[in-house]
């Protein structure tokens, strides 16, 4: 904060001003008191209120996670149905092979691969370009497409494999034969009966994956230089900007807990057996 040419007195004055000389418990108490009153402290490295700093970056991370979740559902559900109902077909073997490889690619390497192939070779987008959400939502989302894909693809692979097994298991059951016997078409059986039941185990995986998407997004922001929560956290850790780190840690933990809660609620909504507590 003061640079390298600092006298001991100046350093001491700053420590006193920031309250760094107080005992740990007193500092923690003050911090908690601040949080309750809506005062999240002031960043050391930016000299700005932490609340303002974090708030300006939330939309970026939120957009990224939302888009990644959208891609996840849009890609993995059709693919899962496709191979789940055609076990041991060419498609199945092919997709199971591809997804096995893709689920082992860490999101940041996926991001680098996408940048290399689609950004630098095919020039579908400009690497490192970022459009602020203040300049228009469509442009903003367009800039987030590739980062979101990078986060989503490894998880798509995971969910597709899971959905395939869930559907295959449901298709073996008696009620499917009954449905066919009633004269329903394959499409109707799939949508009205099988999918409803197969979604229950899948939902629990999506819950875990949603938390993974949050984690992956924090990392991917670094790859695509997006000014979101993740980059703020990492630069704050590297620069020992503790007021920011503390608030972000609490914030991220809260987001993950909320995600879990929402999934739990969805779980109950989808499966009446859990709702009745049986």
């Amino acid at each position, binding site marked *: 904060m003061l640079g390298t040419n600092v006298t001991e007195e100046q350093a001491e004055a700053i420590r006193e001003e920031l309250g760094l000389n107080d005992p740990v418990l007193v500092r923690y108490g003050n911090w908690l008191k601040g949080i309750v009153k809506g005062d999240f402290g002031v960043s050391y490295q930016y000299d700005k209120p932490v609340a303002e700093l974090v708030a300006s970056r939330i939309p970026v991370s939120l957009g990224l996670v939302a888009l990644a979740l959208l891609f996840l559902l849009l890609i993995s559900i059709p693919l899962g149905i496709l191979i789940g109902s055609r076990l041991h077909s060419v498609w199945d073997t092919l997709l199971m092979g591809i997804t096995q490889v893709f689920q082992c690619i860490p999101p940041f390497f996926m991001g680098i691969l996408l940048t290399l192939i689609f950004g630098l070779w095919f020039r579908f987008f400009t690497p490192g370009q970022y459009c602020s959400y203040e300049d228009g939502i469509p442009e903003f989302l367009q800039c987030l497409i590739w980062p979101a894909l990078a986060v989503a693809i490894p998880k798509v692979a995971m969910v597709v494999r899971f959905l395939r097994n869930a559907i295959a298991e449901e298709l073996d059951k008696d009620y499917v034969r009954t449905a066919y016997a009633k004269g329903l078409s394959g499409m109707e059986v799939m949508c009205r009966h099988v999918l409803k039941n197969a979604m229950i185990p899948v939902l629990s995986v999506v819950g875990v994956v949603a938390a993974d998407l949050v*984690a992956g997004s924090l990392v991917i922001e670094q790859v695509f230089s997006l000014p979101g929560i993740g980059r703020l956290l990492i630069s704050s850790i590297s620069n020992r900007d503790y007021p920011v780190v503390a608030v972000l840690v609490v914030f991220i933990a809260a987001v993950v807990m909320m995600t879990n809660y929402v999934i739990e609620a969805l779980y109950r909504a989808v499966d009446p057996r859990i709702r009745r507590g049986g």
Partner: protein
Amino acid sequence: MGRKAYGKKRNWNLIFGSLILGTMALLAVVSLWYTPFDPNAMNGLWKNTAPGLPHLLGTDHFGRDVFSRVMAGSKNTLLIACSVNLASSVIGAAVGVISGYFGGWLDEILMRVNDAVLAFPSVLLALLVISIFGVGMHNLVFAFVILFIPSYARMMRGEVIRMKAMEYIGSAQAIGMGSWRILWKHVLPNARGTYLASVAIGITNAVLAESSMSYLGLGIQPPTASLGRMLAESQGYMMRAPWSALGPGLAILGIALGAGLLSEGIRVKGQGF
């Protein structure tokens, strides 16, 4: 499930998994004594050269040999992944076995703590631990050990509870065997397959998590070669030297994929297919 009736189906997962992971492990072990070039030696005349001879995977922006660095980096990554999984699986298995076998309030407490840790993705928790304890390799290993314990504990607990319902455990109790002897003689040997499969998948997870942290600059610190770190450094030179990103990236993929396939293979083998 639609398998052909004749003969035994080849366990391709096991074969490919062992091959890929074995190759990576071999490269890592060899790097202890020999690498084609010094992984940290810079060479101004050979900056960003394409793959070929003598630099098999080319050189990076400092003229360091990518192949040698990949070897050294794989060694560090594998070392971390193995030590983390060894420690956490032993502790986790102990917690899970005790929790599952004895049940009661102990089980209740241990499993609630487990759930709390499991609710968070490992990269996220590692980030949190690192932000509290500071950056460094030892802290990273420590963080991962803590974070990996719960999944082992849960897996072993499930195995033990499943086994407890079986007759041979009841018979053992009937002939008067003590709890610890039953655990040691009957429960643990029967959980071996599941345990090994989880360790293999644990290595996949550890490799992915470690490389992410090193990529962010919060794991292995330079100049020690690390696959994640190499990817981060190569990003500025992607147009001129894509090989310096692809080399370490494919190495991470290789280790993770090899361990993943191996896990699947062990699991299938355990089911008696």
